[in-house]
Protein backbone atom coordinates (compact mmCIF):
# COMPACT_ATOMS: atom_id res chain seq x y z
CA UNK A 1 0.00 0.00 0.00
CA UNK A 2 2.75 2.35 0.96
CA UNK A 3 4.43 1.37 -2.23
CA UNK A 4 1.38 2.43 -4.21
CA UNK A 5 1.39 5.83 -2.62
CA UNK A 6 5.08 6.12 -3.22
CA UNK A 7 4.62 5.20 -6.83
CA UNK A 8 1.97 7.79 -7.30
CA UNK A 9 4.14 10.53 -5.88
CA UNK A 10 7.61 9.46 -6.85
CA UNK A 11 7.87 10.92 -10.28
CA UNK A 12 6.01 14.07 -9.65
CA UNK A 13 8.14 15.07 -6.72
CA UNK A 14 11.44 13.38 -7.39
CA UNK A 15 11.37 11.43 -4.16
CA UNK A 16 14.30 9.40 -2.95
CA UNK A 17 14.14 5.69 -2.43
CA UNK A 18 11.41 4.27 -0.21
CA UNK A 19 12.96 3.11 3.02
CA UNK A 20 10.65 0.45 4.37
CA UNK A 21 11.16 -0.51 7.97
CA UNK A 22 10.42 -3.66 9.82
CA UNK A 23 7.08 -2.60 11.16
CA UNK A 24 4.31 -2.90 8.71
CA UNK A 25 3.03 0.38 7.47
CA UNK A 26 6.07 2.42 8.46
CA UNK A 27 8.31 3.87 5.80
CA UNK A 28 10.63 6.77 5.27
CA UNK A 29 11.44 8.67 2.19
CA UNK A 30 13.90 11.43 1.40
CA UNK A 31 12.83 14.43 -0.49
CA UNK A 32 14.18 17.70 -1.71
CA UNK A 33 13.44 20.88 -0.02
CA UNK A 34 11.43 22.52 -2.76
CA UNK A 35 9.01 19.60 -2.78
CA UNK A 36 8.32 19.62 0.95
CA UNK A 37 5.20 21.71 0.88
CA UNK A 38 3.64 20.14 -2.25
CA UNK A 39 4.25 16.66 -0.93
CA UNK A 40 2.90 17.46 2.52
CA UNK A 41 -0.14 19.12 1.04
CA UNK A 42 -0.72 16.21 -1.30
CA UNK A 43 -0.30 13.69 1.48
CA UNK A 44 -2.58 15.56 3.77
CA UNK A 45 -5.35 16.37 1.35
CA UNK A 46 -5.26 13.52 -1.10
CA UNK A 47 -3.58 10.55 0.51
CA UNK A 48 -5.24 10.91 3.89
CA UNK A 49 -2.19 11.62 6.04
CA UNK A 50 -4.09 14.00 8.20
CA UNK A 51 -1.99 13.83 11.32
CA UNK A 52 1.44 15.26 11.92
CA UNK A 53 2.81 12.96 14.57
CA UNK A 54 6.00 14.82 15.08
CA UNK A 55 8.56 17.04 13.52
CA UNK A 56 12.03 16.46 14.76
CA UNK A 57 15.62 16.93 13.76
CA UNK A 58 18.85 14.97 13.71
CA UNK A 59 22.21 16.64 13.76
CA UNK A 60 24.42 14.97 11.10
CA UNK A 61 27.39 16.97 12.13
CA UNK A 62 29.76 14.95 9.99
CA UNK A 63 27.74 15.75 6.87
CA UNK A 64 27.23 19.35 7.89
CA UNK A 65 23.55 18.65 7.68
CA UNK A 66 20.45 18.80 9.81
CA UNK A 67 17.90 16.25 8.96
CA UNK A 68 14.28 17.20 9.55
CA UNK A 69 11.86 14.35 9.88
CA UNK A 70 8.17 14.95 9.34
CA UNK A 71 6.34 11.92 10.58
CA UNK A 72 2.83 11.70 9.20
CA UNK A 73 0.06 9.31 9.99
CA UNK A 74 -2.89 8.05 8.01
CA UNK A 75 -5.53 7.08 10.52
CA UNK A 76 -7.80 5.25 8.15
CA UNK A 77 -5.17 3.02 6.69
CA UNK A 78 -2.88 2.91 9.69
CA UNK A 79 0.13 4.10 7.76
CA UNK A 80 3.07 6.11 9.05
CA UNK A 81 5.21 7.93 6.58
CA UNK A 82 8.33 9.83 7.52
CA UNK A 83 9.58 12.50 5.21
CA UNK A 84 13.24 13.28 5.59
CA UNK A 85 14.66 16.52 4.53
CA UNK A 86 18.22 17.67 4.79
CA UNK A 87 19.21 21.22 5.58
CA UNK A 88 22.59 22.85 5.39
CA UNK A 89 23.84 22.89 8.97
CA UNK A 90 25.50 26.26 8.58
CA UNK A 91 22.47 27.84 7.05
CA UNK A 92 19.81 26.16 9.11
CA UNK A 93 16.63 27.71 7.84
CA UNK A 94 13.59 25.51 7.51
CA UNK A 95 10.27 26.18 5.91
CA UNK A 96 7.41 26.68 8.28
CA UNK A 97 4.37 24.47 7.85
CA UNK A 98 2.27 25.86 10.68
CA UNK A 99 -0.38 26.75 8.14
CA UNK A 100 -0.76 23.09 7.23
CA UNK A 101 -0.72 21.81 10.79
CA UNK A 102 -1.00 24.41 13.56
CA UNK A 103 0.82 22.04 15.90
CA UNK A 104 3.88 22.34 13.72
CA UNK A 105 4.43 25.80 15.21
CA UNK A 106 5.21 24.21 18.57
CA UNK A 107 7.62 21.71 17.05
CA UNK A 108 9.31 24.42 15.13
CA UNK A 109 9.66 26.49 18.27
CA UNK A 110 11.30 23.56 19.95
CA UNK A 111 13.66 22.99 17.03
CA UNK A 112 14.52 26.63 16.99
CA UNK A 113 15.48 26.47 20.63
CA UNK A 114 17.17 23.11 20.75
CA UNK A 115 18.88 22.99 17.36
CA UNK A 116 18.89 26.59 16.32
CA UNK A 117 17.01 25.87 13.13
CA UNK A 118 15.12 28.95 12.06
CA UNK A 119 11.59 28.82 10.75
CA UNK A 120 10.79 32.31 9.56
CA UNK A 121 7.11 33.13 9.76
CA UNK A 122 6.21 30.53 12.31
CA UNK A 123 4.19 32.01 15.16
CA UNK A 124 6.06 32.81 18.40
CA UNK A 125 8.99 30.83 17.07
CA UNK A 126 11.61 32.98 18.79
CA UNK A 127 10.05 32.82 22.22
CA UNK A 128 11.49 30.59 24.93
CA UNK A 129 10.06 27.15 24.81
CA UNK A 130 11.48 24.84 27.46
CA UNK A 131 14.71 26.47 28.43
CA UNK A 132 14.55 29.61 30.45
CA UNK A 133 17.28 32.17 30.29
CA UNK A 134 19.44 30.03 28.01
CA UNK A 135 22.34 31.92 26.52
CA UNK A 136 24.59 29.16 25.27
CA UNK A 137 24.46 27.40 21.95
CA UNK A 138 21.39 25.25 21.25
CA UNK A 139 21.91 22.24 23.47
CA UNK A 140 20.84 19.53 21.03
CA UNK A 141 23.52 20.38 18.58
CA UNK A 142 26.12 17.74 18.71
CA UNK A 143 28.95 20.18 19.07
CA UNK A 144 27.39 21.21 22.39
CA UNK A 145 29.04 18.98 24.96
CA UNK A 146 26.53 18.53 27.73
CA UNK A 147 28.96 16.76 30.00
CA UNK A 148 31.56 19.44 29.64
CA UNK A 149 28.91 22.06 30.19
CA UNK A 150 27.69 20.27 33.25
CA UNK A 151 31.17 19.99 34.65
CA UNK A 152 31.82 23.63 34.09
CA UNK A 153 28.54 24.63 35.67
CA UNK A 154 27.80 22.26 38.50
CA UNK A 155 30.42 20.88 40.78
CA UNK A 156 30.35 17.14 41.37
CA UNK A 157 29.77 15.99 44.85
CA UNK A 158 33.01 14.86 46.36
CA UNK A 159 33.40 11.12 46.45
CA UNK A 160 30.90 10.45 43.80
CA UNK A 161 32.02 7.64 41.55
CA UNK A 162 30.89 7.45 38.05
CA UNK A 163 31.12 4.21 36.21
CA UNK A 164 30.28 3.00 32.80
CA UNK A 165 27.06 1.10 33.42
CA UNK A 166 28.06 -1.62 31.04
CA UNK A 167 31.39 -2.29 32.74
CA UNK A 168 29.85 -1.87 36.17
CA UNK A 169 27.06 -4.36 35.67
CA UNK A 170 29.47 -6.79 34.04
CA UNK A 171 31.62 -6.65 37.12
CA UNK A 172 28.74 -7.31 39.40
CA UNK A 173 27.00 -9.99 37.42
CA UNK A 174 29.95 -11.76 35.84
CA UNK A 175 32.88 -11.00 38.08
CA UNK A 176 34.84 -13.94 36.62
CA UNK A 177 35.05 -12.67 33.05
Amino acid sequence: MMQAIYDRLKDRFQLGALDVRSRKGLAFVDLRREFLRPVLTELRDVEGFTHLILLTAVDWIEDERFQLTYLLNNRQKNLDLGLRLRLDRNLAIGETIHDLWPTAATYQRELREMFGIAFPGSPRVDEEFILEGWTDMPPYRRDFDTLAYSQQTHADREGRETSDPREFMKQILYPKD
Partner: protein
Amino acid sequence: MKHMDPNFRKDTKTEFPQREELKPRKVTTPDGQVIDIEPLQDYFCQEPPKVHQKSYFKIVEDFYNWCRAESLWILAFGTGCGAIEMRPLMTPRFDAYRYGIQWRATPRQANLLMISGYLSVKTLKRAIRTYEQMQGPKYVVGLGSCTINGGMYWDSYNTIKKLEEYLPVDLYIAGCMPRPEALLAGFMELKKKIKAGNAEGANKYAEKFDWYKANQKAVIKDWDMPDYNW
Protein backbone atom coordinates in the same frame (compact mmCIF):
# COMPACT_ATOMS: atom_id res chain seq x y z
CA MET B 1 32.33 5.84 28.86
CA LYS B 2 31.40 9.18 27.53
CA HIS B 3 33.93 11.41 25.92
CA MET B 4 34.28 14.94 26.92
CA ASP B 5 35.30 17.51 24.41
CA PRO B 6 38.35 19.13 25.97
CA ASN B 7 37.88 22.19 23.80
CA PHE B 8 34.32 22.91 24.83
CA ARG B 9 33.93 26.11 26.79
CA LYS B 10 30.60 27.21 28.04
CA ASP B 11 29.50 30.66 27.13
CA THR B 12 30.00 32.83 30.17
CA LYS B 13 29.89 36.18 28.50
CA THR B 14 26.41 36.51 27.14
CA GLU B 15 24.09 38.29 29.52
CA PHE B 16 20.47 37.43 29.42
CA PRO B 17 18.43 40.59 28.95
CA GLN B 18 16.08 41.77 31.66
CA ARG B 19 12.51 40.58 31.24
CA GLU B 20 10.27 43.07 29.54
CA GLU B 21 7.76 43.38 32.38
CA LEU B 22 10.52 44.06 34.89
CA LYS B 23 12.25 46.82 32.96
CA PRO B 24 11.75 50.29 34.34
CA ARG B 25 9.01 52.00 32.38
CA LYS B 26 7.37 55.34 32.08
CA VAL B 27 3.65 55.57 32.69
CA THR B 28 1.24 58.43 32.23
CA THR B 29 -0.98 58.98 35.23
CA PRO B 30 -4.64 59.89 34.81
CA ASP B 31 -3.67 63.49 35.43
CA GLY B 32 -1.26 63.40 32.53
CA GLN B 33 1.85 63.33 34.66
CA VAL B 34 4.60 60.95 33.52
CA ILE B 35 5.99 58.80 36.31
CA ASP B 36 8.71 56.19 36.46
CA ILE B 37 7.87 52.66 37.43
CA GLU B 38 10.61 50.34 38.57
CA PRO B 39 8.79 47.07 38.86
CA LEU B 40 11.35 45.33 41.00
CA GLN B 41 11.41 48.19 43.48
CA ASP B 42 7.75 49.07 43.36
CA TYR B 43 6.09 45.72 43.26
CA PHE B 44 8.43 43.59 45.36
CA CYS B 45 9.65 43.98 48.88
CA GLN B 46 13.40 44.39 48.77
CA GLU B 47 14.21 43.55 52.38
CA PRO B 48 16.80 40.78 52.92
CA PRO B 49 15.76 37.87 55.13
CA LYS B 50 16.30 38.21 58.84
CA VAL B 51 17.91 35.87 61.29
CA HIS B 52 15.33 35.07 63.93
CA GLN B 53 16.40 34.44 67.47
CA LYS B 54 15.19 31.47 69.39
CA SER B 55 12.92 32.02 72.34
CA TYR B 56 14.54 33.40 75.39
CA PHE B 57 13.48 30.50 77.53
CA LYS B 58 14.83 27.20 76.46
CA ILE B 59 11.84 25.34 77.73
CA VAL B 60 9.59 27.42 75.56
CA GLU B 61 11.76 26.87 72.56
CA ASP B 62 11.83 23.15 73.25
CA PHE B 63 8.06 23.11 73.45
CA TYR B 64 7.81 25.07 70.26
CA ASN B 65 10.24 22.73 68.56
CA TRP B 66 8.26 19.76 69.68
CA CYS B 67 5.14 21.34 68.24
CA ARG B 68 6.96 22.15 65.03
CA ALA B 69 8.17 18.59 64.78
CA GLU B 70 4.75 17.14 65.43
CA SER B 71 3.06 19.43 62.97
CA LEU B 72 4.90 19.18 59.70
CA TRP B 73 2.99 20.81 56.92
CA ILE B 74 4.37 19.83 53.58
CA LEU B 75 4.02 22.08 50.59
CA ALA B 76 2.28 20.21 47.84
CA PHE B 77 4.98 20.85 45.24
CA GLY B 78 6.43 17.99 43.27
CA THR B 79 9.57 18.64 41.29
CA GLY B 80 10.31 15.24 39.85
CA CYS B 81 9.42 11.59 39.94
CA GLY B 82 9.58 11.62 43.73
CA ALA B 83 6.27 13.43 43.82
CA ILE B 84 4.68 10.12 43.01
CA GLU B 85 6.26 8.48 46.03
CA MET B 86 4.60 11.01 48.32
CA ARG B 87 1.05 10.09 47.43
CA PRO B 88 1.06 6.69 49.12
CA LEU B 89 1.86 8.45 52.37
CA MET B 90 -1.72 9.65 52.55
CA THR B 91 -3.15 6.18 52.06
CA PRO B 92 -4.23 3.86 54.85
CA ARG B 93 -1.14 1.79 54.35
CA PHE B 94 1.28 4.49 55.41
CA ASP B 95 -1.02 7.14 56.89
CA ALA B 96 1.40 9.97 57.50
CA TYR B 97 -1.34 12.04 59.14
CA ARG B 98 -0.89 10.18 62.39
CA TYR B 99 2.53 11.79 62.68
CA GLY B 100 1.05 15.22 62.38
CA ILE B 101 2.07 15.47 58.75
CA GLN B 102 -0.24 17.04 56.26
CA TRP B 103 -0.10 18.77 52.90
CA ARG B 104 -0.86 22.42 52.32
CA ALA B 105 -1.50 24.02 48.99
CA THR B 106 0.10 27.35 49.70
CA PRO B 107 3.71 28.03 50.69
CA ARG B 108 2.54 30.57 53.24
CA GLN B 109 1.15 27.85 55.43
CA ALA B 110 3.65 25.09 54.76
CA ASN B 111 6.90 24.64 56.61
CA LEU B 112 8.42 21.66 54.92
CA LEU B 113 9.58 21.83 51.33
CA MET B 114 10.19 18.44 49.77
CA ILE B 115 12.41 18.60 46.72
CA SER B 116 11.10 15.38 45.35
CA GLY B 117 13.62 14.46 42.70
CA TYR B 118 15.77 16.04 40.03
CA LEU B 119 15.70 19.79 39.88
CA SER B 120 16.20 21.47 36.56
CA VAL B 121 17.48 24.99 36.59
CA LYS B 122 14.10 26.20 35.52
CA THR B 123 12.39 24.44 38.38
CA LEU B 124 15.09 25.54 40.78
CA LYS B 125 13.94 29.07 40.27
CA ARG B 126 10.43 28.09 41.36
CA ALA B 127 11.75 26.10 44.24
CA ILE B 128 13.78 29.04 45.50
CA ARG B 129 10.85 31.36 45.17
CA THR B 130 8.59 28.96 46.95
CA TYR B 131 11.06 28.32 49.70
CA GLU B 132 11.49 31.98 50.33
CA GLN B 133 7.76 32.49 50.47
CA MET B 134 7.42 29.96 53.25
CA GLN B 135 7.53 31.33 56.76
CA GLY B 136 10.27 30.20 59.09
CA PRO B 137 11.21 28.02 60.75
CA LYS B 138 11.09 25.97 57.58
CA TYR B 139 12.72 22.81 56.49
CA VAL B 140 13.98 21.36 53.24
CA VAL B 141 14.23 17.69 52.53
CA GLY B 142 15.95 16.45 49.40
CA LEU B 143 14.52 13.30 47.99
CA GLY B 144 16.52 10.81 45.99
CA SER B 145 20.00 10.78 44.55
CA CYS B 146 19.23 13.46 42.01
CA THR B 147 19.11 16.09 44.73
CA ILE B 148 22.23 14.68 46.31
CA ASN B 149 24.59 14.47 43.39
CA GLY B 150 22.61 14.75 40.23
CA GLY B 151 21.85 11.07 40.11
CA MET B 152 21.21 9.73 36.67
CA TYR B 153 21.24 13.31 35.39
CA TRP B 154 24.81 13.79 36.42
CA ASP B 155 25.84 14.91 32.97
CA SER B 156 22.82 16.99 32.11
CA TYR B 157 23.43 20.55 31.12
CA ASN B 158 20.24 21.64 32.82
CA THR B 159 19.98 19.80 36.12
CA ILE B 160 21.61 20.86 39.34
CA LYS B 161 23.67 18.39 41.28
CA LYS B 162 23.99 19.51 44.86
CA LEU B 163 20.81 20.92 46.33
CA GLU B 164 22.46 22.27 49.44
CA GLU B 165 24.31 24.78 47.38
CA TYR B 166 21.06 26.51 46.65
CA LEU B 167 18.76 25.80 49.56
CA PRO B 168 19.58 24.92 53.19
CA VAL B 169 18.83 21.22 53.15
CA ASP B 170 18.02 19.65 56.47
CA LEU B 171 17.90 16.10 55.33
CA TYR B 172 18.52 13.95 52.27
CA ILE B 173 16.68 10.75 51.77
CA ALA B 174 18.72 8.56 49.45
CA GLY B 175 17.38 6.23 46.84
CA CYS B 176 16.28 6.35 43.29
CA MET B 177 13.57 6.73 44.25
CA PRO B 178 13.28 6.19 48.01
CA ARG B 179 10.21 4.21 48.89
CA PRO B 180 7.49 5.63 51.16
CA GLU B 181 8.91 3.74 54.08
CA ALA B 182 12.19 5.55 53.56
CA LEU B 183 10.29 8.81 53.49
CA LEU B 184 8.64 8.03 56.77
CA ALA B 185 11.99 7.17 58.26
CA GLY B 186 13.29 10.42 56.92
CA PHE B 187 10.47 12.34 58.56
CA MET B 188 11.30 10.70 61.83
CA GLU B 189 14.89 11.79 61.46
CA LEU B 190 13.77 15.30 60.64
CA LYS B 191 11.58 15.37 63.71
CA LYS B 192 14.53 14.36 65.84
CA LYS B 193 16.59 17.07 64.33
CA ILE B 194 13.88 19.68 64.89
CA LYS B 195 13.28 18.60 68.43
CA ALA B 196 16.97 18.84 69.09
CA GLY B 197 16.82 22.40 67.89
CA ASN B 198 19.20 21.75 65.00
CA ALA B 199 16.88 22.43 62.13
CA GLU B 200 17.72 26.08 61.72
CA GLY B 201 17.82 26.08 57.95
CA ALA B 202 15.92 29.33 57.65
CA ASN B 203 18.39 31.16 59.84
CA LYS B 204 21.28 29.55 58.03
CA TYR B 205 19.83 30.73 54.76
CA ALA B 206 19.56 34.25 56.11
CA GLU B 207 23.06 34.19 57.49
CA LYS B 208 24.68 32.86 54.36
CA PHE B 209 22.25 34.67 52.11
CA ASP B 210 24.90 36.12 49.85
CA TRP B 211 26.53 32.77 49.33
CA TYR B 212 23.23 31.13 48.45
CA LYS B 213 22.32 33.95 46.13
CA ALA B 214 25.67 33.74 44.38
CA ASN B 215 25.20 30.02 43.82
CA GLN B 216 21.68 30.49 42.63
CA LYS B 217 22.51 33.30 40.28
CA ALA B 218 25.42 31.34 38.87
CA VAL B 219 23.04 28.83 37.34
CA ILE B 220 19.94 30.94 36.88
CA LYS B 221 20.93 33.36 34.20
CA ASP B 222 17.62 35.12 33.81
CA TRP B 223 17.27 36.20 37.41
CA ASP B 224 13.83 37.79 37.10
CA MET B 225 12.83 38.33 40.67
CA PRO B 226 13.97 40.22 43.73
CA ASP B 227 16.80 38.72 45.68
CA TYR B 228 14.46 37.53 48.36
CA ASN B 229 10.89 36.62 47.59
CA TRP B 230 8.92 37.57 50.65
